[in-house]
């Protein structure tokens, strides 16, 4: 039954992360860079908490596939629950075995005389730590290495509990405490707390062991003097270890104890996670302290193989009706609390943002637009994704205002010093052919990752931009690192073929008199790059003339980009869209003539007609003489819009006009604040 409960719990975790928060998992994956090989291993583990960090990274790489990530999380949380249960069982004085309907099966039988056996009342409590960690994991910045560290601490407790009697067990604790601090950092506090109360509870009486022989579980520690001498130093040590670590590593004391790699923001603390620590330590204690119901009794069947000395029929409490009710109520309360917490903390807004980001990264343009139609995009960064998708589906010029535009920032976001926005913008810049900007945003996004990690996604983009720019040695460095990953290896090895032959490390003698920067060009496979659908195209449409990037003059930059290469239709479309979104009709009218000269029969997309019509009537009394081809339908709709606007001008024209004109440029101009 308990296994079934654990499975159900695990299934719930799996389904939640797979179906409700899959993009949270993708978010995790792209801001880490786990690599196989001794270098990365040594770099990782030769630091306090390094092993947790390494293992956390190992697991996180699989989050590239949300089902795998969900499965891993489910297994980790199930393991956590089982460990807590095992610790609680042992804390009850039961060596091992299952508790089934009033009997103990297996080779372990009975308890020492006078011992109060465990009761199933407390079993639902063993889900508390796992359930809480489940809630914590809804925060995309709470890292898997924190879960690993927690598990290591619980596992250490379990190992210690199995370590035999008296002094050897104490010795095992102190060895494990030091090792655990190095492997898992501050979760050693959990281990130490468990040690303190487990030793305090230990009675020293003989109890049957696994083989049926009588063992002395806790000899000698019942006396407080021995306790003070052998147990209490653990408290001092747990606070001394970080001090000693600071001799070798430069971390603040509180981070060494509170977690270096548990929360993505290194410079912030995440106090909620310590509730999970407290629960992990407290639940076995609670289980030990909760008394068994008095009305219960239970007969224990003892296998015939057991020696007579242990064949003691003890009146053990049987889970009576009262216990079952309380246990059920606990189950319901914990389940309800967890579900409530999931609703509260699931962060579905962020999930939507992450989804847009991943869909853009994977160039799933139709799905971006489907997402936008399902839920209105709420932020500029989401609109950036939508507008990029509109371009790639050939609908930017016609359907720009079918989506809730918020100004030019929804097209090209200014630089922000975070690790999400620049990554999205790097995709936009790359597609536009603004290679250096793509590279800069990818690099700075990676540098902005607040726990100092690298990003495989950024490395991939940096490799691409350096290939396009002809910086093959730099590209090779990125690709060599990507080759050490599981999921980027294949791509990296294919990309390496574009680098051509092996290169010299700056050996000028070998290169003879060719002491110019064109040396690098000799080292790439230029023909293949030119033929590549992405590299070749972007090389053709990127900037040719040197200048500085101007964040205030983005439309001017797009203008130059387009004029540098008329093949760059995206630059043109973005330039027009930028001026429309900025409500700069003067400039729009100027740019439009580049592709739609006055008097041309070329059909203008409807939003362009709307903009030109509006531009014209701002300086003329009617559309008479407008040099562009404005359709009759647009002309009539402009009249209708004007009439309706005037009709409701005293009231709420925005509301009245939305139904018929909500997707027009006019509506955007008059009613969207930018």
């Amino acid at each position: 039954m308990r296994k079934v409960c654990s499975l159900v719990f695990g299934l719930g975790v799996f389904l939640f992360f797979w179906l409700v928060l899959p993009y949270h998992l993708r978010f995790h994956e792209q801001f880490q860079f786990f690599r196989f090989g001794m270098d990365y291993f040594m770099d990782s583990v030769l630091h306090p908490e390094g092993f947790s960090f390494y293992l956390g990274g190992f697991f996180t790489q699989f989050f590239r596939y949300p089902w795998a990530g969900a499965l891993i999380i489910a297994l980790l949380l199930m393991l956590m629950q089982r460990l807590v249960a095992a610790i609680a069982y042992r804390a009850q004085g039961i060596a091992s075995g299952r508790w089934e309907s009033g009997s103990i099966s297996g080779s372990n039988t009975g308890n020492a005389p006078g011992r109060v056996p465990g009761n199933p009342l407390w079993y639902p409590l063993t889900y508390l730590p796992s359930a809480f960690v489940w809630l914590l994991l809804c925060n995309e910045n709470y890292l898997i290495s924190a879960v690993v560290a927690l598990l290591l601490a619980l596992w250490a407790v379990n190992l210690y509990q199995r370590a035999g009697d008296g002094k050897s067990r104490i010795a095992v604790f102190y060895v494990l405490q030091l090792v655990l601090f190095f492997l898992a950092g501050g979760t050693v506090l959990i281990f130490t707390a468990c040690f303190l109360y487990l030793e305090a509870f230990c009675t020293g009486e003989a109890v049957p062991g696994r083989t049926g022989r009588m063992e002395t579980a806790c000899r000698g520690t019942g006396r407080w003097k021995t306790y003070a001498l052998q147990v209490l130093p653990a408290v001092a040590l747990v606070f001394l270890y970080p001090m000693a670590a600071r001799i070798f590593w430069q971390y603040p004391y509180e981070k060494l104890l509170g977690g270096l790699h548990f929360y993505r923001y290194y410079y912030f603390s995440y106090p909620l996670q310590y509730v999970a620590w407290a629960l992990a330590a407290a639940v076995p204690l609670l289980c030990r302290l909760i008394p068994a119901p008095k009305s219960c009794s239970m007969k224990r069947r003892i296998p015939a193989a057991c020696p007579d000395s242990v064949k003691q029929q003890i009146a053990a409490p049987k889970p009576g009706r009262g216990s079952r009710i309380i246990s059920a109520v606990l189950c319901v309360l914990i389940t309800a609390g967890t579900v409530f917490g999931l609703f509260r903390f699931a962060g579905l807004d962020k999930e939507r943002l992450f989804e847009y980001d991943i869909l853009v990264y994977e160039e799933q343009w139709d799905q971006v637009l489907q997402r936008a139609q399902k839920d209105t995009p709420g932020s500029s960064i989401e609109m950036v994704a939508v507008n990029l998708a509109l371009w790639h589906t050939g609908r930017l010029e016609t359907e720009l205002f079918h989506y809730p535009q918020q100004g030019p920032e929804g097209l090209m976001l200014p630089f922000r010093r975070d690790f999400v926005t620049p990554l999205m913008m790097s995709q936009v810049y790359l597609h536009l052919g603004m290679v250096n900007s793509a590279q800069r945003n990818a690099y700075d996004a990676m540098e902005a990752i607040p726990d100092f990690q690298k990003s495989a996604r950024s490395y991939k983009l940096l490799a691409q931009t350096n290939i396009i720019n002809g910086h093959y040695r730099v590209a090779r460095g990125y690709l060599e690192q990507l080759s050490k990953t599981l999921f980027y290896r294949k791509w990296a090895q294919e990309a390496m073929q574009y680098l051509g032959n092996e290169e010299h490390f700056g050996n000028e003698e070998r290169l003879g008199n060719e002491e110019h920067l064109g040396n690098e060009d000799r080292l790439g496979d230029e023909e293949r790059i030119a033929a590549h659908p992405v590299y070749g195209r972007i090389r053709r449409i990127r900037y040719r003339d040197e200048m500085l990037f101007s964040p205030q003059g983005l439309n001017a930059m797009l203008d130059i980009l387009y004029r540098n290469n008329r093949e760059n239709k995206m630059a043109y479309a973005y330039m027009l869209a930028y001026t429309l979104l900025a409500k700069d009709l003067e400039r729009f009218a100027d740019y439009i003539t580049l592709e739609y000269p006055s008097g041309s029969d070329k059909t203008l997309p409807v939003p362009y007609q709307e903009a030109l019509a509006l531009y014209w009537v701002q300086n003329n009394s009617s559309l008479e003489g407008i040099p562009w081809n404005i359709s009759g339908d647009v002309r009539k709709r402009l009249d209708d819009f004007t009439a309706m606007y005037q009709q409701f001008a005293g009231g709420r024209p925005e509301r009245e006009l939305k139904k018929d004109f909500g997707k027009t440029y006019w509506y955007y101009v008059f009613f969207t604040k930018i």
Partner: protein
Amino acid sequence: MSFLPKYSLACMALMAIVACHYAGGEVVPEDSPPAIWPDYKEVTVPVNIAPLNFTLEKTTLLSDEEPAFSRLEAWVEGADGSFIKGSGKRHVRFSMGGWARLLEKNAGDSLLVTLRGWDGKQWHSYRPFTIYVNARPIDHGMVFRYIAPGYEVYSKVDIYQRELSSFRTSAIYENTLIPQTCANCHSFKQGDPEYFSLHVRGEKGATVLQKEGTFRYLDSRTDSTSSAFSYPSWHPDGRYIAYSLNKTYQSFHVTAEDRVEVYDLVSDIVIYDTQENCILASDLLTTGAFETFPKFSADGHSLYFCLAREQDLPTEYRDLRYNLCRVDFDPLTGETGKEIHTVIDAVSIGKSISQPVPSPDGRHILFSLLDFGTFPVNHRASELALLDLEDNTWRLLDAWNSPDVESYHSWSSNSRWVVFSSRRQDGLLVLPYIGYIDEQGNTGKPFLLPQKDPEHFYGTLTRSFNCPELVTAAVKLERRKLERSANRMEREEVRFRRID
């Protein structure tokens, strides 16, 4: 038979097998010197430098017939006949002790290095090459900043020191210690770590000043100055430090040649009196023009700096050019002279000078020469040039320059060695090269800072060696005091005084 003899026999058997494996096979002479990496052929090294371990460049570029080697061996023979052997699978490693002794015995002379590689069937032996050993030692170590070659955002920024006679490297300050800080502009009085200045940037930041065992954490911002302290230069007496005050900005290039353009919208120079805790500001050096990169002369009676007239930036960034200038300095009062002397008029030749550094012996000034601008590390055209103060002539140091960036440099205390930054390796990462220079300014071929496994080290490096500074002894930063002062925001305010 006991375990030990069995073990010894097994070892001997194993060694015999290995020896036999390599002993046979003919030796094929190659008629060219080996394409080693780093390129240590014909370099001049100090007598106390760490072993120049090296590897063989990947040779498939040259021809398909060139083999890949499974083992490399090198003999290094001194003029006195002594020699050492280095070997390895991927790279040649020399023992520290053997290398040190060999160099000591051959100080002032040269070493002949003969390399051979085993391709599985035979040895390929290359033409020997020479390494020149100069008897003048280099300083104890090099302090540098480890920073990624990024743009507007920094992540891990650390100040490290590397002992030059070994591979020992240790962190002086890592910005994990005080979160959300950065560190820059580490400087020493003529390489003496007893006189140490370092800026810690960020909300908890200030200028660290360690001098003769005292620690101070200075808040250098005042109402009368435009910014906190930037580029430092210690006076030889140790009392004064010249600092520039810079409001620095960045713009970014759109084409592939360069990435970043750094410029100052405001820059001035002030003198900080460590004794009086007072900034001394002169009208001459705090004008609307751009005064930056101050450096005291070796005798302390002059202050060199770079000067450019004001420009409309960033629009006119290509017109921004700096001259090398000098002003008198009175070490008794801390005051600068009343007249600025132009030492090199770089503007008139369409160039710009940056980062001038006088040699400790007072004979030369090493500087970076670029086509325009002020931050040479971002300019591929940046090259090193040397001004001879005896005859006031200057020239480019062709032996040290490459097609890519050469910039930040530091003299050894005996004025015979210079460590400088170069991007020649891949155009992105800045690496430290060490070059010899004699009294007349003649230079030896520079060499890349040696590493235990250079191919692996530099191949996996993701951060640049920024601002390498030679130091005469190990640097000890009072980290606990720094941490306490920063976390408690206990910063000593500095005073300000106009000296005109």
